[in-house]
């Protein structure tokens, strides 16, 4: 126990040590997170009227980000599956970064749900009288928190073992890894069921949404991980092979293809049938009664996703920077498509045919940026302490008692970073 607390303390101290780039990055994130906190405090004082949400469009950017990020969290298993099921060992040492991402992202998800509540002070009511199993939101609360715990356990255990220079006991983590794989599917399916179970919203009331969610998540998530791994490689010198990135690229390509196909199926059914149920889809793609706030966005998303898909199938994407570009395009494209593009149109027109558009306010946008910054902050710290542990720079035997030791190990990390830099370029 004492060793563990000491380990945590050392990790804590380590998270404050780095070079000027690290400080700049961390300061920027902290500053944005604080701006978000400031905006959220204003929301607490004045109510959700500070957001662009209305009775007509009662969910907006918060829930859109939540939906997107649940997918991102679920996608962490796309690193795990190749390793533990297909035995692709290039990824073995990278699994931990996926799981850490899942931890940070679930934290963001929970934050997004919390800021969306009108009465966060009554959060306790979820424990006192959870409407389980009838309400899909109660399922979501459970699966998200369990997923968080699963990943915390896996990461924490593996990192702590590395710290103690012990070989991890398979019985302590392998079963959890497999549970986490299944659970990852469950979190995104349950989140899809939140929406598809509502008969009052024909735009959502379609069985294809859940598979679409998974496909888009398994495209955008690994795409984000591809970028993250390169950042880690660049700044920590941790060994990450191009081969590992290419495995992920394969996953991304297949998932994006499936996603585009399912979207096409959806569009065909809606528009060819021509029933009044297509009216929200019509609003999204072409506007309604002259109201077309989302039209440029959705076409941008379609363009970005299509471009990414085409690029990923051409040999040019063997080059890392081309692949990165495709990843960025896809991350943005999918964010629009399944964030704002999936949440907002379901409310337009309202069930009684009224068209009220949704425009996020600046305050609401700040809260979102703040949560993203806080999430990245958490992820950066997690990676910051994990890499030295995995590289053996921060281990139990060196039993630190003062800051100088930590600083020394940190310096070593930095020098490693400098050495590692050319390799990645």
């Amino acid at each position: 126990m004492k060793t563990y607390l000491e380990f945590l303390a050392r990790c804590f101290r380590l998270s404050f040590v780095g070079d000027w780039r690290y400080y700049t990055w961390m300061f920027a994130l902290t500053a944005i997170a604080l701006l978000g906190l400031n905006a959220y405090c204003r929301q607490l004082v004045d109510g959700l009227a500070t957001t662009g949400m209305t009775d007509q469009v009662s969910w907006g950017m918060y829930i859109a980000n939540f939906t997107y990020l649940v997918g991102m969290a679920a996608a962490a298993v796309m690193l795990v599956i190749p390793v533990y099921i297909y035995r692709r060992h290039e990824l073995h040492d990278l699994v931990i970064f996926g799981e850490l991402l899942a931890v940070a992202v679930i934290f963001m998800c929970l934050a997004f749900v919390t800021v969306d509540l009108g009465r966060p002070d009554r959060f306790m009511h979820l424990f006192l009288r959870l409407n389980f199993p009838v309400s899909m939101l109660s399922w979501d609360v459970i699966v998200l928190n369990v997923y968080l715990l699963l990943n915390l356990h896996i990461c924490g255990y593996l990192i702590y073992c590395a710290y103690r220079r012990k070989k991890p006991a398979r019985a302590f983590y392998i079963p959890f890894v497999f549970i986490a794989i299944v659970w990852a599917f469950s979190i995104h399916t349950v989140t899809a069921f939140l929406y598809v179970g509502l008969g009052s919203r024909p735009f959502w009331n379609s069985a294809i949404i859940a598979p679409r969610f998974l496909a888009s998540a398994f495209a955008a998530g690994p795409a984000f991980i591809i970028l993250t791994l390169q950042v880690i490689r660049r700044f920590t010198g941790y060994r990450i092979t191009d081969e590992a990135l290419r495995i992920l690229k394969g996953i991304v390509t297949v998932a994006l293809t499936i996603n585009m196909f399912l979207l096409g199926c959806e569009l065909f059914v809606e528009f060819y049938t021509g029933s009044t149920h297509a009216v929200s889809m019509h609003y999204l793609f072409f506007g309604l009664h002259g109201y077309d706030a989302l039209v440029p966005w959705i076409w941008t998303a379609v363009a970005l996703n299509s471009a990414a898909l085409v690029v990923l199938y051409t040999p040019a994407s063997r080059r890392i920077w081309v692949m990165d570009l495709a990843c960025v395009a896809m991350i943005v494209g999918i964010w629009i498509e399944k964030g704002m593009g999936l949440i907002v149109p379901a409310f337009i027109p309202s069930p009684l045919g009224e068209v009220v558009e949704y425009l996020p306010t600046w305050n609401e946008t700040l809260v979102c940026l703040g949560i993203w910054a806080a999430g990245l902050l958490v992820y950066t710290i997690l990676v910051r302490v994990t890499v030295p542990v995995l590289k053996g720079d921060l281990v139990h035997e060196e039993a630190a008692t003062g800051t100088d030791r930590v600083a020394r190990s940190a310096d070593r990390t930095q020098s490693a970073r400098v050495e590692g830099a050319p390799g990645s370029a």
Partner: protein
Amino acid sequence: MQSASSSKVGAAAWLVGPAFFGLAAWLWFGGGGVEIPRRPDVPVDLRRLSTAPRRVTIGDPPTIRINNYERHCNDCHQVFEISEEQRANRMQHQHVELQHGINVQCRHCHDARDMNGLLLRDETHIAFAEVDRLCAQCHPKVHEDWVLGIHGRINGHWDPAQGEVRKLGCIECHDPHRPRTPAMDRLAPLPGPHTLRMGEPAVHGELHHPEERDPLRRAAQGLGASKAEEHR
């Protein structure tokens, strides 16, 4: 190299504190408030929300005010007999404009022998309070609905065990002399919704001039277009 990097670290770390202070100052003084679109409340005139019956009936037996005296119908009508010709000289009843289908004379409804009450077709004399029986002679379907509580309004209580079920009578809404007055079912509407961040009403006004694809409705609108124009 190591010393160079650590001195860089030092310099950067020194900046963190002041930068945070700067942020604090900006948040404290510069961070603007949030615009919540407010709208001054225009309270609706409560008189327009009256639950009183739309017509004031004249009581049973009815009274009429002549030269500051409350009179019963029979006070005069015992003296002045109504005849076939009385419509030419309506005396105290100048305001009555009789436009009620085949009922063109007072005695078609009022009991000429006892003006404190009404007369059914079978010569039964009834009190004013039972006016619905008179109406039922020509409007049996509506009357049936009214009896069942389907037609017309019930004020007060739905549960007779807990209070009065005040079923409004026929002539508390309908003018028996002129049931189809233009003003009968026409009112100025109260203000429409103005919810938070509603923006400009989207389909407003378009309803009557839509690009209509449905041939049935197109025809219907063609017929009604002129009326709608006139109305607006």
